[in-house]
């Protein structure tokens, strides 16, 4: 897919980093305010999809550095992995665990890890579909 629109490419240059940041913001605040892994994953997938429209799939792959399929795998691993900490506490699987980080006043938790897993899976799945569609198009052309 090629695009020649100046407006889109300029807008993308500014929007993509903003959108990625925004997605992280949505991800982290998700537990208390509207947001969360699923929504944030969609936002960031949108950002990369836009990047791909402007710069082509190779550029997006380079920007992403990892294969989107690996994102899926890693996300699933985090999702499943977050089930285990409860185990050390002798509780049922997937029982949420909370840890306070001293000094920073941050709250770390297994739901957060789980949410990051969801985020990565959504990102990976959407991008796998989008990038593959474009690449197959290109191969045929």
């Amino acid at each position, binding site marked *: 897919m090629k695009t020649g629109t100046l407006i889109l490419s300029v807008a993308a240059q500014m929007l993509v980093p903003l959108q990625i940041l925004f997605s992280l913001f949505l991800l982290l605040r998700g537990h208390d305010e509207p*947001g*969360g892994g699923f929504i944030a994953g969609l936002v960031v997938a949108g950002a990369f*999809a836009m990047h791909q429209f402007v710069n082509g799939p190779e550029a997006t792959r380079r920007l992403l550095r990892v294969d989107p399929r690996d994102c*899926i795998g890693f996300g699933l691993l985090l999702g499943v992995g*977050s089930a285990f900490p409860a185990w050390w506490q002798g509780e049922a699987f997937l029982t949420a665990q909370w840890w306070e980080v001293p000094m920073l006043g941050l709250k770390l938790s297994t739901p957060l890890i789980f949410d990051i897993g969801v985020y990565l899976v959504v990102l990976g799945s*959407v991008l796998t579909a*989008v990038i593959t*569609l*474009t690449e197959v198009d290109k191969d*045929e052309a």
Partner: protein
Amino acid sequence: MQIAVLSGFVLAILVPLISRWCGSRTGLILALYPAAIAFWLVSLMPEVLQSGGIYFEQAWAPSLGLSLSFWLDGLSLLFGLLISGIGTLIIIYASGYLHGHPQLARFYVLILSFMSSMLGVVMADGLMTLFVFWELTSITSYMLIGFNHEDAAARKSALQGLLVTFTGGLALMSGLIMLNVAGGSWSLQTLLNDGDALREHALYLPMLLCLLGGAFTKSAQFPFHFWLPNAMAAPTPVSAYLHSATMVKAGIYLMARLQPGLGGTETWMTILCIVGAITMVVGAFLAIRFSGIKKVLAYSTVMALGTLTMLLGIGGEAAMIAFVTFLAAHSLYKGALFMVAGALDHETGTKDIDEMGGLRRAMPVTALCAFVAAMSLGGVIPLFGFVAKELMFEAVLDAPRYTGFLIGMSLLASVLVVAAAGIVALRPFFGALKATPKDPHEAPLSMLAGPCVLAGLSLVLGFMPWLAGDGLLNAAASAVMGTEVATDLYLWHGINTALMMSMFSLCVGLLVCWRWSGVRGAIHRFSPILDRGPEAVYWKLMDLLVRVAEWQTRLLQSGYMRNYLILTLLTFVGLTGYTLLVRHGPVFDLELDVRLQEVVVAFVTAASAIMACMMRSRLAAVATAGVMGFGIALIFLLFSAPDLAITQLLIETLTVILLILVLFRMPRFSSFSTPMERVRDMFVAVSTGVLMTLLILTVLGQDLFTSISEYMIENSEPLGHGHNIVNVILVDFRALDTLGEIFVLSLAAIGVLAMLRLQAKEKKAS
């Protein structure tokens, strides 16, 4: 205990790293894991012997009454020791046998996962824990048998093993569920303590048949025995491990485990005795039919598995002690023999006994190990196998039922097994030296350690059977029996009937071995009949499966989206509509309490939906459908569900992106359907819409269930530490559901990938 079992999986994950760092020493390092397990089990032995067992439980899904629970008693201990002990030797052996194999790391990953699964099976207490580990052994053994995946025969055999054991796995699952229904518990320990209730339950027969179906397929009992010899396509360390000591014994373990709960009835005795005896003879008979050394060993394993089943069927103290002794003896000598077979194959380049001869000079240590192990297999005094065989004959002589039949069968089987032992141990090493594809020389130390230790143990335990007997074997027999068993094991029982039977089988067996070519020629004439065995039925079934699959795919999978949609929607309308009308009737009160903005948004949404159907350009259709989506998002926002609204907006955006990508691939937009089809489509669409409307009105009108929103709202902050209730539900309260959903999402992405890539490849190829 859970750490011991599960750490194998963690170690398996780390194998690629370890093998990168340690190179060829990886095998020795990994062998430390099973060795540690073995030591740990030995250290627990006094406690287990004293208290009768150690229990461990970890809540899994308490709301379903499921837990991850383990139970270590005498039987588990015996199996655990065999698995970890032989496992240690196998890993060391494999590091020699597969030395320099490009995928050695993959082998270690699989064998460690398999080992852990196997330990899980024999220590599981929860029925579901047992089932999960059971299936894990099937999966990992599938990958191990098909380790040489570039070889079509290996793939075929692996799939055969998988299908047979998975079919059995399904039966096992039904059996376990029935066990739970009948006994009212998920814990084996609780269930087995109340055996009478199980035996008198109405579900006893179906439950027993299902459980035995699982055990028989796993343990290659007649008529499912054919997969085991075929599984010899695996590398020899795999055969030595899976098909001597572990995987195939899982079924035996299951039957032994269930014996106190389900055993002792007429049905149990009949099925186990008959099937076991037939398997025993069939296995022994087929063993001398082939000249591939691994095939001979595989069929003699089938014979041993049949013997074990038969002993379980006979029941009683003598049979139980014979069972555990035979089990231990068999694991020792069969492991050794398989490793010897691997060494022969590795050093001479052939697996065919006919091509080997006179190797005793070139491979003296291997020859000695083979000789000792084979004597144990044949039941020659003073090996451990002799002790086991004496006990087996004594148990058979005392059998309460079918005594004559069992005596005849076991005598016949042991004659044939002596012959098989002679074939394996004498033929390759004695006689004139024959030219083999490779110049034969002694195997490396790593490959000799295993057979030497196992053959040595067979010898030591033969002279001093009480070493194993007093503690371990008696405890294991007690666990199978359900009551305390204390029998002293001796090498010499005096001159009695059992000894006579032993001597008779030895003499006739050696005669058969001597005249092997003649015997094989005679058997060969019956090949056409023998080839029509159960395996032929298996292939017929496979053909049938493919044909039925083809037929139903043609019938159901038209490949047209519209047909799928119509079918799905009409089914939904039909079933739900019927339930709605019959159960509730269209009762609802229409309260028009709406605000102006809601009406406007609803109108826009509905209008754009109608517009989307009437558009003449595809892009416009996509755009109007998008408007409809945004309208829905607005409605969510109006009813203060910001998370839903955001999600809806984002999904709409992504849908547009995806649609635009797909649009280029579609044929030109034009009218494909006839007016009649349009009327049909309209009917489907309208009826679905009407039904949904009715459904929602009904749900709103009646309070069918107490709402759970209150609970969620109240507990979101105290239990989930979050103010955003939707998110707390997603990642905490209902995290298991979300976990399932992200797996579905991943599968969908992989599906898209596979579909697109495959199509692109096909196009390129054509």
